[in-house]
């Protein structure tokens, strides 16, 4: 008896000692504990709601009731989405990844089938009679993934820093993907889901002391959403973002500064944690897209690059420079559908893209075959069809040029220009070609007069009814997927050979398939930027569409499928968009608000 008591006391004291030691080593704030509890509760609810769906399915429930279950489960997911995406990216992909086939490079022919809500959605919301077998399989898959978020979730180490970081990234996710219908394309339940997501944000902010300002604007944003949730097509996204979400992001930023909560250290992220909001000037960290050791702030290097960019000695017959095709006065395009090949009197295979903002892409070329600008430069110079240059020859030509060598010596310490240095300099120059000060950017930074009513309506269509924003993600308007912007999506649109809509023929360029040999990449192309599109006609990888109007009509028809091509794996939905004449005009007007071909000229070097 006595003995037992003694052990208890001993246990008690050592527990206290250990606790004290544990506390000092790993101090958990009240906030962190509460957030952990919040996660645990909601991941449990998510799991039971998916289990309930399994049960209903087993007992013969009909489509309508399953759709209700589906919506409910998604709402639970939206409550913890910020954390699942942040801490368990693979689980997030399995729970709510896009409904697209993938493969590992090591097994290109082996499809990895998508799982999760978005696949299930297609089954449950299908217009055909419910395929119970498929529904069961997908629900089981979802249940498995949700359970994983629970099991692995138990090990998440919440900190005030990563909680706020995750919430802010989730706000970016909300405005870039959430309200565009990206992850609920069929159910079109995006706005009610946005409410669930913001309510969760509100609840989580509530755990933070003195967060009154944050709560106030979140409540206002919620109110705005609640008033308009029934009208997906008419929802004024521009106002929602500029008046509510951007200011909310700024307040989170201010809160962190005021309460000395350090910003997450995220050296490997395109959008750093310590910026006010997604559209703040300089929000994208260019070094994220550059190789280690690239010099991003060397004026001398960029100046040398500019000289090289215009130097015809880089080509085999000294008759072509980069600027021959990427003409600065044409926003670094050439205005042609296809430029001339140097070989055999042919045309080049692809349309010349603009270089403005090219450096802000995780991959280069429309088949995504290259990561870094440095390597892209090599590919172009060495390509016999484009420039056909030989680096040894170029080096000796340049080394003899006194004026050139002066600029060279300002940038490098070597005696004569090496191939590596030529590439570095050209890449450095292309990295100065940015254009993020369009009317649209100014609007998002608070200048409410920067866009016209037509442009604003065009933006809302772009982000809603016309579905453009589900592929062209803000703020780059490329396929670089938010909120990490590290993966570039490619899509199968069914681009025609020409703008002939009477007898359309499909373009047979195999696209990304050519690079990786993965069947689902056949005819897929990098989602190119819409920025500056108003001044970079003609369009698409083959320059087949001559005007923005033709391009919008192409999408309005449902892409290649709309033109009658049998293209089973087209990733652009094949249904017509049913845009009115005025709506088409407004989208075109909005694209005009993305033009900035002048900012780069102001960079001095």
């Amino acid at each position, binding site marked *: 008896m006595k003995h037992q008591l003694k052990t208890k006391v001993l*246990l*008690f004291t*050592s*527990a*206290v000692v*250990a*606790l004290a030691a*544990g506390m000092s080593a790993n101090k958990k704030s009240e906030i962190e504990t509460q957030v952990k509890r919040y996660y645990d509760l909601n991941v449990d609810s998510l799991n039971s709601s998916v289990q309930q769906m399994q049960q209903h399915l087993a007992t013969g429930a009909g489509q309508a009731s399953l759709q209700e279950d589906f919506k409910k489960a998604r709402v639970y997911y939206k409550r913890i989405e910020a954390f699942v995406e942040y*801490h*368990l*990216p*693979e*689980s997030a992909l399995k729970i709510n990844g896009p409904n697209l086939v993938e493969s*590992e*490079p*090591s097994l290109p022919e082996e499809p990895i089938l998508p799982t999760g809500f978005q696949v299930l959605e297609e089954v449950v919301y299908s217009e055909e009679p419910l395929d119970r077998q498929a529904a069961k399989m997908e629900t089981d898959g979802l249940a498995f993934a949700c359970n*994983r978020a629970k099991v*692995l979730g138990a*090990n998440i*180490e919440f900190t005030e820093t990563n909680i706020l970081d995750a919430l802010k990234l989730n706000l970016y996710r909300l405005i870039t993907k959430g309200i565009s219908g990206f992850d609920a394309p069929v159910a079109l339940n995006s706005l009610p889901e946005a409410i669930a997501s913001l309510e969760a944000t509100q609840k989580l902010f509530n755990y933070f002391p003195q967060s009154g300002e944050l709560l106030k604007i979140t409540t206002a944003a919620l109110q705005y959403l609640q008033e308009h949730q029934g009208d997906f097509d008419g929802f004024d996204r521009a106002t929602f973002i500029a008046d509510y979400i951007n200011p909310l992001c700024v307040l989170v930023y201010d809160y962190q500064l005021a309460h000395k909560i350090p910003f997450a*250290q995220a*050296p*490997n992220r395109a959008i750093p944690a310590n910026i006010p909001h997604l559209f703040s000037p300089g929000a994208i960290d260019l070094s994220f897209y550059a*190789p*280690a*050791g690239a010099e991003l702030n060397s004026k001398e290097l960029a100046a040398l690059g500019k000289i090289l960019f215009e130097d015809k000695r880089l080509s085999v017959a000294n008759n072509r420079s980069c600027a021959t095709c990427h003409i600065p006065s044409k926003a670094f395009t050439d205005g042609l559908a296809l430029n001339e090949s140097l070989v055999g009197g042919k045309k080049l295979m692809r349309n010349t893209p603009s270089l403005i903002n090219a450096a802000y892409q995780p991959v280069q070329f429309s088949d995504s*075959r*290259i*990561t*870094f600008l*440095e*390597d892209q430069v*090599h*590919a172009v110079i*060495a390509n016999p069809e484009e420039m056909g240059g030989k680096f040894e020859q170029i080096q000796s030509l340049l080394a003899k040029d006194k004026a050139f060598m002066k600029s060279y010596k300002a940038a490098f310490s070597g005696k004569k220009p090496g*191939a*590596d240095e030529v590439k570095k300099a050209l890449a450095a120059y292309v990295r100065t070609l940015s254009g993020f000060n369009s009317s649209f950017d100014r609007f998002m930074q608070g200048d409410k007069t920067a866009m016209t009513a037509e442009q604003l309506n065009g933006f809302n269509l772009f982000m809603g009814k016309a579905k453009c924003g589900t592929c062209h993600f803000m703020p780059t308007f490329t396929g670089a997927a938010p909120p990490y912007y*590290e993966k570039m999506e490619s899509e199968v649109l069914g681009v025609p050979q020409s703008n002939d809509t009477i007898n359309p023929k499909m373009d047979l360029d195999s696209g990304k398939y050519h*690079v990786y040999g993965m069947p689902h990449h056949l005819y897929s192309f990098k989602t190119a930027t819409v920025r500056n599109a108003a001044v970079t006609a003609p369009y698409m990888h083959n320059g087949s569409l001559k005007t923005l109007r033709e391009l919008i009509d192409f999408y309005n028809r449902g892409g290649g499928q709309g033109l009658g091509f049998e293209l089973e794996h087209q990733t652009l939905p094949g249904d017509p968009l049913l845009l009115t004449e005025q709506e088409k005009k407004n989208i075109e007007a909005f694209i005009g608000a993305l033009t900035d071909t002048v900012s780069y000229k102001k960079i001095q070097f």
Partner: protein
Amino acid sequence: MKLNIKMSVVIAFLLTKGYSAFTQEGKIDCAAHVFKTIPEALEYKDCATKLSMRVAKIERVSEQIGNLKAITYLDLKSNSLRELPASIGALSKLEQVIISENHLKSLPETIEGWQSVRFMQLDNNSLSDLPLGLFKLKKLNTLDLSWNNFASLNSRIGSLGQLKILDLNHNSLLVLPKEIGKLKALQEMDLSFNKLKAIPDEVIRMSSLKRLALANNELEQLPRNIGKLKKLKSIIVTNNKLTQLPESISALKELESIYLSYNQIGKLPAALYKMSHLRNLVLVGNPIPAAEVKALKQALPNTNIVF
């Protein structure tokens, strides 16, 4: 009573945190034991040397790993990692690192701290670049970067003077930096399945090279002075666009095997007829006249010639 409930909560908390006072049953031999989780290893944080979370379904590595200062062996193979925590650079005793089959897009700059590392397996990830810190790992002798996304290599690769094995097969390399020639200790270099059109001449300075694999590239020729690679035992150039072999090849007295299948070689160098030390010569898929093959077989009766 109230206190009691609090106590059990405290104890449960401590138990889940794995505090040694409560869970340490038998003694564990730190030198031999392979820990399976970070919390488990943290109980022995000053002595745990081996940590294997192979096929553990993890998506993130806890920053806590940085506290396991005694770790020499780390195996994270076959998980779903996209990044590593910066704190991992604190493992200055690490000798062997296996992070194959994940989704890594980059490595933290802090790995410069792995000053004891000898062996690194990073195959089957999504790497296209290496942090500069990696080039300061002076003890590194094996680097496996196969099945990644490299289109080029940082010229600092030349500073890895101890490197013996470099595996870059299945990437998208377009060029090699000439600095690669500085790898004087390199014995095996696998560059198969890339997009190389040429090999820099500097390669001939790799005086320890025994095995050179260049299969499935777009090579039109081999370095003219390849004969300088005196230690070379095998050359694999299957599936390229070679039209001839350099004469200097006959200077390679240690050479045992040449794999030349599926190139466009029409004529073999005369010097080849004297390379009686060759064990294997594979010529399938080249436009070489049958008579020439016959003559070669006569000249090299001890060589296994496949045509």
